[in-house]
């Protein structure tokens, strides 16, 4: 099997975060309490999503410069996987928000920005399905993908940092780093992010290979 080491590494890293993430000692924080462990699971979904969308964006640019259909198939497969991660991130975030901020949905700029981002990407899938000619579809959707990625960075990376936000590290709130400087949290969080990115890449590659078979 091609890429066996990274597939196994990804699974083991996630497994580590699932098990050690529950065993490990976490800082005692008000309000969030034990739910700080969601950092390992909820936040890593978003990191994986951004990584998938960035790779999709890279392949969209690759398609536009090479006109190679392989790049287009990679681009859409990665975007689909990224969309999956964003739905998981949204649902887990809503549950977490309910029991720490007190509501399933708040008018936090990061939440609304994420909702807009997801709609932009949903429009990307609709756009693709509305064009029959494969080359034309690839070209138009690659251009749109560049727009969507830039909008994602603006809506979830920049705007929430410029206004008040409930999310740590945004709008004058301190980031997680400054709470309790948590090497204990980092020890689980970084492997979780890396693991989900590796497994996300794997899932995207499966989708890409199915697409190749369909051609």
């Amino acid at each position, binding site marked *: *099997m091609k890429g066996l080491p990274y597939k196994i590494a990804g699974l083991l890293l996630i497994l580590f975060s699932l098990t050690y993430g*529950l*065993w490990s000692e976490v800082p005692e924080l008000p309000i969030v309490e034990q739910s700080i462990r969601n950092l390992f699971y909820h936040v890593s979904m978003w990191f994986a999503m951004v990584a998938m969308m960035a790779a999709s964006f890279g392949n969209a640019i690759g398609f536009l410069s090479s006109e190679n259909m392989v790049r287009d198939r990679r681009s859409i497969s990665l975007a689909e996987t990224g969309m999956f991660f964003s739905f998981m991130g949204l649902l887990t975030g809503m549950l977490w928000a309910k029991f720490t901020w007190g509501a399933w949905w708040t008018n936090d700029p990061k939440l609304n920005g994420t909702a807009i981002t997801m709609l932009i990407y949903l429009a990307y899938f609709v756009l693709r399905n509305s064009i029959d000619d494969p080359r034309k579809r690839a070209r138009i959707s690659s251009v749109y993908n560049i727009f969507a990625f830039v909008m994602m960075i603006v809506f979830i990376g920049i705007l929430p940092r410029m206004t008040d936000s409930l999310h740590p590290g945004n709008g004058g709130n301190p980031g997680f780093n400054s709470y309790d400087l948590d090497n204990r949290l980092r020890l689980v969080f970084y492997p979780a992010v890396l693991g989900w990115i590796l497994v996300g890449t794997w899932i995207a590659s499966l989708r890409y290979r199915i697409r190749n078979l369909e051609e």
Partner: protein
Amino acid sequence: MKKLIALIIAFSPIAVAAQNDSVMYGNEKMNVVIGVITIIFIGLGAYLFSLDRKIKKLEDEK
């Protein structure tokens, strides 16, 4: 057969731990939950591998 052996090897640490009462009853039985999560996740990983193999077979046929 190979798959079966791989699965047995993957699950054996849990089986060994489950024989040991002080491990499974310890930590307010949290370890039982961790064991359940581990089993589900290993199953999910095995499923991904089997999908990968099926696609490989289709690619070889093409």
